[in-house]
C-alpha cells in the first residue's frame, strides 16, 4: 500500500482547468496518469491521428511506387496531394512513409528504453564499481558524436535493413537518457522509504522492481518519448542524406527524392511540404505530451504552484508604496 501512495504522491494537487469532475480527477490520480490539460489533449489527438494514418492509411491508398506518365502534377481530385515527378501518388507515399517512420521510432524507442534503463537504473542502484563502470561507459558514449558514427557504420554496409538502421540509431542514442535516469535513481535509492525496506529485509531485486521502478515510470515515459522523436528525426536525416535503409519508404526518403527531383526549384510544394510537416507535427505532439509528463516529475513547473508564487509577489505599485513608506 505504501507503494501506491508513493507513486501517486507527485500527481496529487495538480488540477488542470480541463481536469473534469472531482471523482474523475481522483481516478486519474490513482492510476498515476497526468492531469488532462489542453496541452496533453492536443498532443494526444495529433499524435493519435498520425498514428492512425500510418496504421490504416496504407490499406486505403494505391501502390506508392506505381509510376504514371502524368509526371509532376499538383493536387487534383484524382491525386489528392499531387504526384511526384514520376507520377507517383504523394498521398500514398505519405501513408507508407508514415508507417515506415513510426516503425523506426517504435523499435528505437523500445531498444533505447532497455539500454538506458539497464545502464542508468541498474548501474546507479547497484553502486560501487558497477556504477563507476556503467557511468564511465555512458559518458563515453555520450561524447562520441552519434550521427557521424551512424554515417560511418552505414556506409560500410551497402544493403541495410530497417532493423539495422534502428539498431545503429539506438546504439548511438541511449546514453543521454541513461545519464538522466542514473541521476534520478541515485536520489531515489537514498530516500528513507527505500532504506526502510532494505532494513525490513526486502531482497535487492524486489526493492529495485517494486520500490524504485514505479517511481521512475514518469521519467522513463518522457525519456522514451524523447527517444522516439530522436529516432524519427535521426532516421529522416540519415535517409535525407541517402544513407537510410534500402527499399524502405519513410518521411526522410520522401524528402531525399523530393530534393533530388528538384522539387524545390520547380516549386512542387505538395511534394516536400507534407512529409516535413508531418515530422514536425508528430515531434511537436510528442513534446506536448512530454510537457505534461514533466509536470509530474517536476511539480515546480505546474501552473498551480506558479499561480501561488505569483500571489506572493508585490505588484509594482505596492513596491513603490512600500518604498515610500520606508523612506
Amino acid at each position, binding site marked *: 500500500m505504501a507503494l501506491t501512495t508513493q507513486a501517486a504522491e507527485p500527481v496529487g494537487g495538480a488540477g488542470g482547468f480541463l481536469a473534469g469532475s472531482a471523482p474523475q480527477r481522483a481516478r486519474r490520480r490513482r492510476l498515476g496518469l497526468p492531469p488532462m490539460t489542453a*496541452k496533453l489533449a492536443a498532443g494526444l489527438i495529433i499524435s493519435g491521428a498520425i498514428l492512425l494514418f500510418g496504421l490504416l492509411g496504407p490499406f486505403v491508398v494505391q501502390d506508392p511506387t506505381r509510376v504514371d506518365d502524368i509526371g509532376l502534377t499538383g493536387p487534383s481530385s484524382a491525386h489528392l496531394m499531387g504526384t511526384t515527378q514520376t507520377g507517383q501518388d504523394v498521398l500514398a507515399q505519405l501513408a507508407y512513409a508514415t508507417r515506415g517512420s513510426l516503425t523506426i521510432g517504435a523499435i528505437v524507442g523500445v531498444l533505447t528504453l532497455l539500454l538506458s534503463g539497464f545502464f542508468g537504473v541498474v548501474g546507479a542502484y547497484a553502486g560501487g564499481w558497477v556504477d563507476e563502470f556503467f557511468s*564511465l561507459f555512458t*559518458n*563515453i558514449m*555520450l*561524447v*562520441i*558524436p*552519434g*550521427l*557521424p*558514427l551512424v*554515417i*560511418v*557504420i552505414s*556506409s*560500410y*554496409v551497402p544493403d541495410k535493413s530497417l532493423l539495422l538502421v534502428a539498431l545503429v540509431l539506438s546504439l548511438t542514442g541511449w546514453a*543521454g537518457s541513461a545519464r538522466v535516469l542514473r541521476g534520478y535513481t541515485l536520489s531515489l535509492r537514498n530516500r528513507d522509504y527505500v532504506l526502510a525496506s532494505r532494513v525490513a529485509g526486502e531482497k535487492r531485486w524486489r526493492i529495485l522492481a517494486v520500490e524504485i521502478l514505479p517511481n521512475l515510470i514518469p521519467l522513463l515515459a518522457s525519456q522514451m518519448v524523447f527517444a522516439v*522523436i530522436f529516432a524519427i*528525426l535521426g532516421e*529522416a*536525416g540519415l535517409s*535525407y*542524406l541517402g*544513407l537510410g535503409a534500402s527499399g524502405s519508404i519513410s*518521411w526522410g526518403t520522401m*524528402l531525399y527524392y523530393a*530534393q533530388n527531383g528538384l522539387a*524545390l*526549384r520547380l*516549386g512542387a510544394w505538395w511534394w*516536400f*511540404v507534407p*512529409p*516535413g510537416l508531418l*515530422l*514536425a507535427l*508528430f*515531434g*511537436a505532439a*510528442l*513534446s*506536448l505530451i512530454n510537457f505534461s509528463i*514533466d509536470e509530474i516529475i*517536476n511539480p*515546480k*513547473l505546474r501552473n498551480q*504552484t*506558479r499561480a501561488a*508564487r*505569483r500571489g*506572493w*509577489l508585490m505588484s509594482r505599485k505596492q513596491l513603490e508604496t512600500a*518604498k515610500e513608506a520606508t523612506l
Partner: protein
Amino acid sequence: MHLLRKVGFYVIALWAALTVNFIIPRLMPGDPVSLLIAKLGQRGPVTPEARASIEVLLGTDTDQPLLAQYVDYLGNLATGDLGLSVSYFPAPVTSIIGQTLPWTIGLIGLATVISFLLGIGLGTVAGWKRGSWLDNLIPVTTMFQSVPYFWLALILLFVFGSVWPVFPLNGGYDIYDTVPGWNAEFIGSVLYYGTLPALTIIISSVGGWMLGMRNMMVSTLSEDYLLTAEAKGLRPGRVMRTYAARNAILPSISGFAISLGFVVAGSIVTEAVFSYPGIGSALLQAVGSNDYALMQGIFLVITLSVLGANLLVDLLYSVIDPRTRART
C-alpha cells in the same frame, strides 16, 4: 584531484574513440582496403608506403595478429599519418581536413554560441516574467525545434534563395569575384554566404536553450533565498541576474557540452543542404565515393573536437560552480 579525474576521463574517452575507429572497418563485411587501393590505382600510381599506411588504418586480410595491427595503427596516428584520399587524390587526408575544418568551426561554432547566448537570455526573461508574451512564445519555439532541421533549412532556402532571392543558394563564398585570404571582399562574402546557414541553425536550436533555461529559472525562483533577496529590497534586475540566472544556468552549461556532439552531427546535414565547403561535406563526399581513409580520418577529427570542446566546458564549469570543486 577533481581536475585529474576529469582529464583521466577524457583520456579514456579518447582511447575509446580511437579504438572504435580501429574496430569499425575491421568488423564490417567486405574488404575496404583492396577496394580503396583499386580506386587509388585508377587515379595514379600507389607507392608502397601509401599502401602500407592504408592497410594499417583500415585493416587487411594478412595473418598479422589484431594486437600488432592495433599497435601499428596507434603509431601511425601518433605521427599524424591518416593515409591518402581517393576523392581528392593524391592529397593526404590530413590536408583535406585542415582545409575544411575552419569552415565548419567558423559557421557551426559561431551559430551555436549565438544561439546559446540568445536562448539563455530569452529564457531568463521568460522565466522571470512568467505568463508574459515571451513566456507564451515558448511553445512556438519548441515547435520550431521539433521541425526537422534539414527541412527547415530547405524551406528557408526555398523562400530566401528561389522565391525571394536575398541569399545565395549554396557555397561558402563567392568563388568568381573574390580571392581567399585576409581581404575585406573575401571576409564580407564569407559572412554573406554564411548568414542563411547560421540563421537556420539558430532558429532550430534556440528554442531548446530557451525552454531549458526558462524551466530552471522557474524552479530556481521558488527557492527561499530568492524570496529573501526580494525581501531585502534588492533591485529586480540584480535578483534576476546574480541570484536566479546564475544558478539556473548551470544545467544549461553542462547541456551545452553534450549538445556539441549534436552540433557536429547537425553540421553534416547543414553542409549537405547548403553545399558548404566544411568537414561535413567532405564526409559525405567520402561516403559517396567509398573513400574509407578520408571517412575514418574525418570521424576521428570530429570526435577529437567534440572531446576537446567537452573538456573545455567541463573545466569552465568548475570555475562557475564552486560546488563541483568542493565535492572531492
